[in-house]
Structure formats: C-alpha cells, structure tokens
C-alpha cells in the first residue's frame, strides 16, 4: 500500500495543522513535492518541499521527515532519541538541521506512524575530490579533513549536562571506565538481540576487555557514525551534521574511530603530508582533548561489536516478521552480520598474537 506521505493533500493537511511549529508567523502551509530518499537506510527519510504563508506572502520551506520503517529501525536506538539529539543541539556551536517537532499523534501523522520533522539544509553530502589522488587536490582534501575534525571537536566541546544529554544517554561512571562500560552495554545488547549465544562475540569481547583503554581525557558527547556521507557540506563548510543514531556519551576516540574517508593518507616525495598523526594533532589543537592511536584502534575494533548489535536488531525483526520482513533487514542480518563476525574473529585472534 502506498504511503500517505506520497499524497500531497494528506501531507499538506498535516503541515497546515502544525503550522505554528513551522515558524512564529506562519498562517498556512502546504506540500508541493515529496520524495523518499534512498540514502540513510536505517530509517525512512523523506524530503518534503513545503510552501508556508505568512503576513508577507509565501516562502519555500524545505523539510525532512524521519520515521522508522514499518518493520522498525535497523539500528537499535529509538526515533524519539534521535529527535531529541537534534533538539538539544539547537543552540550549540554544532551545525545541525533545526528540529521542528516530533509527531506522535496517530490521528494526524501520515500513515498514523510517529515521525519527526526537521528543516532540510541546502548542501551536499558528496565530496568527489576526496578520492582524487591528484596532488593538485591535496590542499582541498586536507582542508576538508581539517574542517571535519573541527566539527567533531565542536561536538565534543558541547556542555552535555547543560544540554540534557545525561537524561538521554547512559553516563559513564568516569572517563577511565567509559570504554569498558560501553563494551559491556553493547555486548549485552547484542546477546539479547541475537537470540543465541555467540562464541566469536565472547572471544572478541574477552580480548577487548583485556585491553580496554583507561586513559580517556574526558566524557564527551559523541556523534557515532560520521564523515563522508554523513554531513551536509556547502562552500567548503559543514552546514549540518546528520546521522546521530549511534550517538552516546563517552571517549572522543569513539568518534574518531568512526570517521569515514575524511582522513586521507597523502604521501608526496616519500613524505607524509597528511594522515592520522596530523589529523589527531589538529583535532587536539581545536578540542584540547588527546586521542591516541592506541585508543583509536581499540574503538575501531569495538565497532565490530556495535555492528553485530545492529545486525542482530535487524535479525530480531526478521524473526518477528517472517516473510513480511523487508529485504534490507534480511540483508543486514545476513551479509553485514557476517562481516561483523569476521572482524570479531580477527579481534579474537589478536588476543593470542598479543600474548605470544
């Protein structure tokens, strides 16, 4: 059955009924175009082009609607939490799209399903020059890398207590305990969702626990998935940071370990001009927080546990829904889970090589 989000009349009626959320002087609203976006598969993302009417006439207002799939979400974090992250970051130095409201009234929500609405920020996630090894692109690649690291620094410098993130996420008992407590929490979550005990998970977690870092400099707000494909860029700047599904409070190394493609290694005439050592130095100069390569490696290994947990979340939906489970969930629980298991096996194997 086609979604009601594809029906412009339904969407117009919904927006108009919430017009006070669209701006202080908005007197009416209608939708002129709606499209489901193919990026961001863990939840549904819809682009809605709205036109709002005020005392000075009409103006365009690009919006995004996020909601779970009918089967739920791929990631085991809830939609409301995702909305609350955007709402709490509104008055900080972190660039995010403005969250407008969380719709939980089934009587007015399209398809009767909860979702939230945020402004859609103009820009692009795609930085085609990143993978271009032409030396003429070096400056641009390094500058983009710096800009991204500065944005992460801004996230990590958020006063998370003042913004109320301690009411949204578990708070590590200390910076030193952040790694091991996160490991325990994610392992428990993966085991509950898997439905059967996993020897490869047990071995990998044992190896990770044995070398869990205790030298985190602080507990900070972490974004989770970040980097190329996750932020909105315009004119060489990040204008909106998106995808906060794996956000948490913890060691800043958690985020640096999840950077996607934004720290290219560039070697010219046998000399490294950019890479992780330079990136970490730049990050520290902007945040005042030290992240060692050792902690970076640990959190990269931990990611296999996080990945298995979200794959197991998809697998639980497949078990619950049977033949009606969306294919994307099946694929995540199948192929992606296997890749997580391979990484876990490699982490487990490293326990032996570390002791021999």
């Amino acid at each position, binding site marked *: 059955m086609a979604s009601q989000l594809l029906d412009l009349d339904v969407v117009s009626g919904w927006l108009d009924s919430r017009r006070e959320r669209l701006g202080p002087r908005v007197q009416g609203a209608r939708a002129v175009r709606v499209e489901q976006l*193919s990026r961001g598969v863990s939840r549904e993302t819809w682009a809605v082009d709205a036109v709002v009417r005020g005392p000075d006439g009409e103006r365009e207002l690009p919006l995004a609607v996020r909601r779970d799939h009918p089967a739920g979400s791929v990631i085991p974090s809830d939609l409301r939490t995702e909305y609350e992250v955007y709402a709490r970051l509104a008055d900080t130095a972190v660039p995010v799209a403005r969250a407008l409201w969380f719709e939980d009234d089934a009587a007015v929500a399209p398809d009767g399903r909860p979702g939230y609405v945020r402004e859609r920020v103009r820009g692009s996630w795609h930085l085609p020059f990143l993978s271009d090894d032409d030396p003429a692109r070096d400056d641009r690649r390094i500058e983009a890398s710096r800009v991204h690291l500065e944005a992460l620094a801004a996230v990590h410098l958020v006063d998370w207590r003042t913004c109320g993130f301690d009411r949204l996420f578990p708070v590590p008992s200390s910076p030193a305990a952040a790694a091991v407590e996160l490991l325990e929490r994610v392992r428990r979550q993966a085991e509950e969702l898997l439905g059967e005990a996993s020897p490869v998970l047990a071995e990998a977690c044992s190896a990770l626990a044995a070398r869990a870092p205790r030298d985190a400099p602080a507990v900070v707000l972490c974004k989770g998935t970040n980097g190329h494909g996750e932020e909105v860029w315009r004119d060489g700047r990040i204008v909106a940071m998106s995808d906060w599904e794996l956000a948490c409070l913890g060691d800043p190394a958690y985020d640096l370990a999840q950077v996607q493609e934004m720290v290219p290694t560039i070697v010219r005439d046998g000399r490294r001009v950019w890479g992780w050592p330079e990136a970490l130095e730049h990050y520290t100069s902007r945040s005042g927080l030290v992240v060692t390569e050792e902690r970076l490696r640990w959190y990269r290994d931990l990611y296999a546990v996080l990945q298995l947990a979200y794959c197991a979340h998809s697998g639980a939906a497949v078990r619950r829904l049977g033949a009606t489970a969306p*294919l994307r969930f099946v694929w995540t629980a199948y192929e992606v889970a296997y890749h997580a298991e391979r990484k876990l096996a490699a982490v487990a194997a490293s326990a032996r090589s570390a002791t021999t």
Partner: protein
Amino acid sequence: MHPGPLEVVAAAVTALEDVVAPAVRDEHAESTLRTAVQLLRSTRVRLEVEQQALAEECAELRALLELWQVRLALAAVPAPAALRYPARAEQAHEAAALRSALAAAIDAVPDPDHPFRVAARDVVQRSVDRQQPWLVDAFTGPRR
C-alpha cells in the same frame, strides 16, 4: 527430481537479471531487486555446501567441548541430532546449542592463554571461514 534446487534458483536469478531488471524503472525497486538477486545467489551456494559445513562445525565443537568437559567442569555437552541424516534445521539447531555451550565455556575460563581458549579461537575462526562461500564468494554481479 530434476531440475534440482540449485538449477531452480540459478534459473530464477537469470530470469530476474535478464528479463525483469531491464524493465524496472524505479530506483528503489531496482536496488531492492539487485539485493534480492544477490541473496538468491547466496542461497544457491548455501543449499550446496551448508549441510556439510554444519556437520563439520558440530563435529569440531562437540570434540572440543567433550575433551574439556570434565577437566573444566563444563556443563553437559548438548545431545546430537536424533536422526542419522538430520534435516538442515535440526543440524542448525544442534550447532546453535553447541555454540551456546562454547560461549558459556569461554566465559567460564577467563585466561585467554588457556589451551582450551586457544583451541576455542581456532574452532571459531574455522566456523567463520566455512561460511565464506555463501556469504562472500557468492555475491557476484551488480550490488544493491
């Protein structure tokens, strides 16, 4: 009966790729179709080799747990499937029970250098490697 399941799935893959895919215009449907074809490819290989892989895995897990059961005071090793030629589902159930037993035993022996833990990691690695034919090698052709 001929054609067997492998031929049936292979023919379905060919039909979806050669006949259905070129007619699909919607981007989301096209992507979903590519994923479906890949999963069918995987299933074809799985039909061919998984039972043998499960039998090998169960034998290895059982041997390891039986070898250490008394010395480490481990829980009883789960019983094997009752039938001489168990169905895939029964084999999978047996493997899951043995894996659970191994996971519990790993947690019960905290020293990662204990010979049991070293042997457990080898068994775990081989178990992961056995799935590669249908979870890595089978995925050929256009992706999602």
